[in-house]
């Protein structure tokens, strides 16, 4: 199975080296097309005017912040069940990217909300759930930072990620409940049930561009993490070699 071949970090780095230029090129091209469509070919909305153009970055980033959590959950299963050596690398490097996309979704949502709802922040069910998701991302990053042993930190973060994945639907459900209880459907819904194809295509292209951006950044961050662990292992080996009493024990693999 090809998936297992890349358990070896050195092979993974080689794969990244080959793959990355293509992905970057594709990502830039898709962004160029998507942005062109978003600004020049997509018509303005008859209700929202030009502010509809915020949708082309708001919806993809909101989508990506959930996809990133999915990637982290799958990686966490990989860490706990299969002990795949790259799984916790993947989970760790996805967290800051996910947090950034969540932040982008919140910022664009509130900048869209100001002209539409008249307020920057509405305690709307979706924005509230995304805010909770942001806190979870930041908590996971804090957990990674506070533990210095990457293996132990990886397992702890994996447990928390999976508990969070179990909890996210419950949070979504309860926030929806809370929202309908406190404000009976008065807010303008941002995306109507129907969307015209002239608006749908730019959205899909932008979503693809954001997804490619995520994978580019994720692969680059994973490569950094592999290098960081290599540096850590070498430093520890160097420290054990420099101590003469334990020099004989240094022959064991340091990674």
């Amino acid at each position, binding site marked *: 199975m090809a998936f297992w071949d890349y358990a070896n970090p050195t092979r993974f780095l080689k794969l990244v080296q080959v793959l990355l230029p293509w992905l970057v090129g594709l990502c830039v091209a898709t962004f160029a097309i998507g942005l062109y469509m978003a600004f020049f070919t997509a018509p303005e909305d008859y209700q929202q005017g030009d502010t509809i153009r915020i949708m082309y970055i708001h919806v993809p980033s909101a989508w990506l912040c959930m996809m990133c959590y999915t990637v982290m959950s799958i990686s966490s299963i990989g860490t*706990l069940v299969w002990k795949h050596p790259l799984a916790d690398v993947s989970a760790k490097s996805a967290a800051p990217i996910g947090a950034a996309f969540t932040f982008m979704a919140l910022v664009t949502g509130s900048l869209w909300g100001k002209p539409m709802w008249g307020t920057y922040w509405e305690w709307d069910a979706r924005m509230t759930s995304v805010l*909770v*998701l942001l*806190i*979870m991302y*930041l*908590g996971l990053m*804090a*957990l990674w930072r*506070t*533990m210095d042993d990457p293996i*132990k930190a990886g*397992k*702890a973060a994996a*447990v*928390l990620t*999976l*508990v*969070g994945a*179990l*909890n996210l639907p*419950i*949070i979504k*459900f*309860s*926030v929806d*409940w*809370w929202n309908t*209880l406190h404000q009976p459907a008065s807010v303008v819904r941002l995306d109507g049930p129907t969307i015209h194809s002239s608006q749908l295509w730019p959205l899909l292209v932008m979503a693809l561009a954001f997804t490619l951006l995520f994978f580019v950044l994720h692969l680059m961050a994973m490569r950094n993490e592999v290098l960081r662990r290599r540096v850590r292992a070498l430093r520890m080996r160097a420290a054990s070699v420099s101590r003469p009493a334990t020099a004989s024990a240094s022959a064991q693999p340091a990674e």
Partner: protein
Amino acid sequence: MTGWAMALFRRDLRLSVRIGGSAIVGVLFFLAVVTVFPFGVGPDLNLLARIGPAILWIGALLATLLGLDRLFQADREDGTLDLMLMAGRPLELVVLIKCLAHWLSTGLPLVVAAPLFSVFLNLDPVAMAAVTATLLVGTPALTLIGAIGASLTVSLRRGGLLLAVLVVPLTVPILIFGVSSADAAIHDPVPFMTPFLILCALTLIAAVVGPIASAAALRFAAD
């Protein structure tokens, strides 16, 4: 309950009641939070009656979070946790028993104090009973979910603040359904039982997920 479980339960209960008196401190903290709220929002009794259930719930949440970091830490420091891991008993059950003992010594006093504190917040008897009932059902869930955070941060020297950050997002549903069922009893947009039963369901889910995840985290922290 088998012998070892009862012994562990008694030991934990005795430790938490004797040393440090965490039960009393938790209730004092709860009182402090409830007292501070009117200074923030003003002494308007109508407003306080309206947001009273929320104040009591947030106070209980904060008081629970405050006591959680000692759930496993003391046992880790003196090596008891390692013995528990090596004893061959199901660790999930050990965690569940420890949570039960912890809740009896810190959560239950909060529930008992809630009717008294709701007098300060101008709650009528029905609301008082509703808040107490929701706290009785909901605070075990807070302890059980908090146990996950406590076992994740067990090896950290100053994990208390991180624990709170990790646990708070997970407790959002419990807070929502706890407060909304208390609200439903006062001015009923929905019948009381609907959110209350969902709260019960959440507690039962927490009783399954909490010990399993917490035991997994403790095992990983040990090896």
